[in-house]
């Protein structure tokens, strides 16, 4: 029974450490993102790049799309959307980065995971921008539901999926685990 409690303690103390470190890193990233320097150097250019990439993809099948800064506009009917901070996928990316940094794994795999994760989150974010652009021209009620609730969920769910897949493909642990099985292990 004592060992069972020990196992339980190890599991939950590891998990607690994960959650605490995750919260600290995420809060630090949020604060960093809000600083004028990071906002000007990373967030705004990133958001505008998202808009340009989305417009570039839409230009393949729609010739009535124009961009201006963080605005995406239909040149025929005048409908436009502004991609603001919060709609650029950086929040989900920050969550993913924090989760990958905190989860025990080799640094090489953390870096690869962060890069692949960023790509996955931003790729889905581009789908979000494009879908919302057309949903808004079709039906504003559905646009609001998709914008305010549905896509918010899906983007964060995307981050979770990437994180779980990343954990799945991590190499076997090479660090010393706190529990080992001695040669006296017996099979039931």
């Amino acid at each position: 029974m004592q060992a069972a409690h020990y196992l339980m303690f190890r599991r939950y103390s590891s998990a607690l450490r994960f959650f605490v470190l995750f919260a600290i890193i995420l809060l630090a990233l949020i604060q960093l993102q809000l600083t004028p320097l990071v906002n000007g150097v990373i967030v705004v250019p990133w958001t505008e790049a998202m808009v340009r990439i989305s417009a570039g993809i839409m230009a393949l099948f729609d010739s009535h799309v124009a961009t201006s800064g963080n605005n995406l506009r239909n040149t025929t009917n005048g409908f436009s959307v502004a991609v603001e901070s919060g709609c650029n996928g950086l929040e989900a990316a920050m969550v993913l980065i924090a989760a990958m940094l905190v989860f025990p794994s080799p640094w090489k795999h953390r870096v690869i995971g962060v890069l692949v994760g960023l790509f996955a989150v931003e790729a889905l974010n581009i789908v979000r921008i494009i879908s919302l652009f057309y949903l808004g021209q079709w039906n504003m009620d559905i646009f609001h539901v998709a914008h305010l609730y549905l896509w918010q969920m899906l983007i964060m769910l995307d981050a979770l999926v990437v994180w779980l897949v990343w954990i799945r493909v991590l190499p076997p642990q090479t660090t010393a685990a706190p529990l080992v099985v001695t040669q006296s292990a017996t099979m039931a």
Partner: protein
Amino acid sequence: MTTNGPSLWKFLLRAFLWLPVCFAAWYFSAQLYAVVIGFPTAWLLNQLQPGILSGMAQRGLDLVFVTSIKVRLTPESYALKTLQVNFLIYTYGLALFLALMLAAHAKWWKILIGAIVLLPFQIWGLAFNFLSHLVTMLGPNELAKLGFLGWHIDAISLGKRVGDLFFPSLIPLLLWVGFNLAFIGRLSGSRTHSSPTLTTIDAHAVAVPDIVASPAPPNKSSDYARPSTPAVYTVTPVQIVSVLPAKPIAGNTAAPPFGWTYPS
């Protein structure tokens, strides 16, 4: 590749199938949440700023907070300022949480606890939304009269950002992770233990263990499928002095009986 780890893909498929069902259920019952989070939010705001609210009403999917801030219309009459907030943007995480937990075959009491734990975060979002609107609506003089300092306004801005962009969708995920540590532990260990490579150590080179259990209890804390090959180990927490080259125990392919671990 892995043969005995938990099925991530089946879980994800179930989650994506449950999501539209849960989203629809949440959306069409959304009006009910106005009471659940509206009253606690109003109570909290009145605790933070006594007398700031004089009433609350529901208008469709919006909550209308009636403040006690007066606007004089004529010398004889005045009106009370109101703030309208869409409370659904703080509650959609419930649908996400339900979908994930149902996909994980979670027990009902875990779902209930999770739904209750979500409430304070939803109230946080709604309260900071109100405060943020209040800061925008009032001028510096009025804010100073209410006791708002400069750092209060910065804190409100950060609180709203976190409450709007992170809590609604992040907390459900964290709750799901918290309820499924064993699954994630097995997920991370599934490749490690996909081949029979349980490490053996030199019994002479270890410190005397202070805790010994035989046999180790099966993992009961998971809602997930158990390892296909039941096994009982003698588990001994020890301090490793030296480790011999890994030597597999034939036929032992069970997942580790613990979650993830940090290097000591």
